């Protein structure tokens, strides 16, 4: 039985993607209503509810996207610092830098040649790495973040498509209903 969730038989229905149910494309409103056995109002209510669920998931994904988009420049900045330290290593001169002690208060630091850096890993944990290890770890994190972002963006696109399909279906069901009422009204008053 070709159920709505079978994506192999009907190319017009994508099952779901990472937990997001796909919106079923409606070829013909009348067939759709008889297939689901719903009357117009219940169908509209069901579609509206689906739309709300989609909106919720969209909020969640957008928040995740914002987080990732903030994380990526952070990692790039860290890579920059490690690269600068490595460049200074050969010259033998110390790097003098002004850093923030507290808001509005800066202090001067003298960074001697060093082979290792400490990386903040989160959860109050900081580990010491050699410059090369630090660079490769940061690069790996950057790649993972970029890859996750891409997957997230694809998810959002899929979600938005489902939202559009659902909105179009709602409009069509509503229009079909208006059309039906008009026909019934015309039939009820046969005198032109």
């Amino acid at each position: 039985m070709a159920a709505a969730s079978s994506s192999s038989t009907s190319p017009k229905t994508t099952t779901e993607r990472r937990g997001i149910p796909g919106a079923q494309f409606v070829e013909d409103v009348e067939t759709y209503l008889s297939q689901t056995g719903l009357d117009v109002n219940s169908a509209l209510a069901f579609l509206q509810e689906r739309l709300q669920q989609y909106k919720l998931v969209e909020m969640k994904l957008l928040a995740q996207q914002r987080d990732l988009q903030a994380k990526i420049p952070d990692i790039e900045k860290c890579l920059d610092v490690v690269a600068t330290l490595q460049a200074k290593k050969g010259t033998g001169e110390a790097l003098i830098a002004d850093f923030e002690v507290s808001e509005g208060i800066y202090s001067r630091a003298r960074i001697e040649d060093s082979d290792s850096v400490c990386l903040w890993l989160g959860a109050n944990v900081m580990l010491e790495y050699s410059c090369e290890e630090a660079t490769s770890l940061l690069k790996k994190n950057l790649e993972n973040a970029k890859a996750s972002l891409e997957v997230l963006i694809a998810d959002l696109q899929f979600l938005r498509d489902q939202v559009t399909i659902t909105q179009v279906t709602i409009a069509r069901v509503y229009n079909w209903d208006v059309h039906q009422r008009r026909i019934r009204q015309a039939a009820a008053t046969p005198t032109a």
Partner: protein
Amino acid sequence: MQQGPGGSETEVTWEDQQNINKFGRLNNRFHELEDEIKTAKETNDNLEDASNELILTDEEVVRFQIGEVFAHVPKEEVETRIEEMKEVTSKNLEKLEEEKESVLAQMTELKTILYGKFKDSINLEED
């Protein structure tokens, strides 16, 4: 107001739905691009201002922000760095502008197709 069979009931095929979806996606991308272009232009302006300031200053050592700290860097190195950053930003800006043009062109094409089929039943303008 027509009451005939072709009245307010235009059929929507899967292809139409896909066109509508694609238009929606392009519209979203267009807005994202506008924001990105705005940010890139601001960065470009900031770098311009920075390099102008550099020319005016007579200090030998400039505090250049790397990550969260301001490192003491000799003026020439800062100039080189800023030049590099300016190049990267303007290339990025060019790429974004090109993508925006292509997105706009695709959207106009889709508009013609969709308005052709649905005429007044569809609205593809900005709200």
